[in-house]
């Protein structure tokens, strides 16, 4: 029974440490960042004096939307194919292997690929477009994997019920299975948004580090995370970098909350 107590303590301690670590990080960011959150930091235009993050916030929003526009349809259709249409085959094994491999690649490698392919080969230069497509490829495995899991989680009996009414596979998938899988799919998109908003390595060599608000998809621009990275690596504005971290934290948390809210609304049918 002492061993039992020991295990219980171990489990409790592990849980406490995880929670405490998270808490300390958040606390640290807030303590260091909040005092430096000045109105200057939110000026409409960036100058080297105010190091405003407003352009970076706008760039982040555009970057996120663009990446999702490409990765969500592509990823979901892949997941739908894998779960609903494919039959065990070598081709299927190959796709799964490719997806798994993509998921394990460090983001800097995506950055270098983007540099070689989008920036140089397609001559798109450092641009939001190059960055967004690089990130789209990067989050594709996330969307595919979570999409697959969400579809697999829909009971087979739903599909049977639909087929038994004379519905085609297409109608069954799009009208019965996917609506039931929305929460899981949303969870995947949230994960993807988190990775896009937090990414730096894959963007520095594809979207560049220009601190201004982009004027089009071909202009270079830095996202909030890149902005923070540049500020802290330059070493002149570490306080402002901490303030930026606070905003990044709030934005990501806000986005997650929003996505969860949407997911909940979309599935008020589920129990």
């Amino acid at each position, binding site marked *: 029974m002492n061993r039992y107590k020991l295990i219980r303590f171990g489990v409790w301690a592990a849980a406490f440490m995880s929670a405490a670590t998270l808490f300390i990080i958040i606390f640290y960011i807030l303590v260091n960042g909040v005092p430096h959150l000045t109105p200057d930091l939110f000026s409409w235009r960036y100058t080297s004096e105010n190091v405003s993050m407003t352009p970076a916030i706008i760039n982040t929003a555009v970057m996120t939307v663009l990446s999702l526009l490409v990765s969500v349809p592509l990823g979901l259709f892949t997941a739908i194919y894998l779960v609903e249409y494919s039959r065990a085959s070598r081709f299927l094994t190959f796709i799964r292997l490719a997806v798994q491999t993509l998921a394990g690649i460090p983001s800097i490698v995506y950055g270098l690929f983007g540099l070689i392919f989008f920036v140089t080969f397609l001559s798109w230069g450092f641009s939001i477009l190059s960055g967004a497509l690089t990130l789209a490829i990067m989050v594709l495995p996330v969307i595919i994997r979570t999409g697959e899991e969400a579809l697999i989680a829909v009971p087979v009996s739903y599909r049977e019920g639909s*087929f038994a009414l*004379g*519905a085609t596979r297409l109608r069954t998938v799009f009208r019965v299975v996917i609506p039931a899988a929305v929460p899981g799919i949303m969870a995947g998109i949230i994960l993807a948004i988190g990775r896009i908003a937090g990414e730096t390595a894959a963007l520095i060599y594809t979207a560049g580090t220009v601190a201004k608000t982009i004027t089009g998809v071909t202009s270079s621009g830095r996202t909030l995370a890149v902005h923070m990275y540049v500020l802290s690596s330059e070493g002149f504005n570490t306080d402002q970098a901490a303030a930026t971290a606070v905003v990044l934290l709030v934005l990501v948390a806000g986005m997650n909350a929003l996505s969860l809210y949407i997911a909940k609304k979309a599935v008020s*049918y*589920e129990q």
Partner: protein
Amino acid sequence: MSSKFEVKELNLFFGEFQALYNINLQFSEREVFALIGPSGCGKSTFLKTLNRMNDLVLNCKITGDVLLDGKDIFSAIDVNVLRKSVGMVFQKPNPFAMSIYENIAFGPKTHGVSKKAELDEIVEMSLSAAALWDEVKDRLKKSALDLSGGQQQRLCVARSLAVNPEVLLMDEPTSALDPLSTLKIEELICNLKTKYTIIIVTHNMQQAARVSDKTAFFLLGQLIEADLTDKIFSSPKDKRTEDYITGRFG
């Protein structure tokens, strides 16, 4: 009585395994036909042959003929038209994750009904026919998953009725329900008989005796005997049928 469904020399294989052996059976219009037999004897498999749900099983191979109104269901009828004519209610209630209304409207929409007024009418008629209308008419927009198990099963019956079928297949429709809900479904079956051919798989002898006109006894993939329910239960021809009915069977 004219024959609605006719099954001739049906053999069914899952890969190497033969699940049904040379089945010959006829189902008439407006009758309740019960299929009984021990677990794993092929009742569900047989039922799923009639609306071609076995098509979904990869290695399933079928020989023999199944005729619906004299037409071969494997070659002369489109599979989705067949499934519209031959509805199915499953063992476990399986309403979709949609509102009650949308659950019922799904089938008619599948087959081209799009006018709101027409759908409204179908929804009310189907729910009434399944004896559920009064219980749900004030919450048609609510999720079907919030209904009780018995209500969900009646919803599934209503959902099948909404596409205007001729035959209703039911695979142990009350095995997941409490006695009261079971009673309601049985009453429902007796009412629906005036319009539909109903083929029901059941584990429950009393249920077969209560609701069916005819009964077929399956054993290890073979049809042992089929006759009027009264005859099967009072004077079965085969010793194995008698053993099963009297409960002397595994």
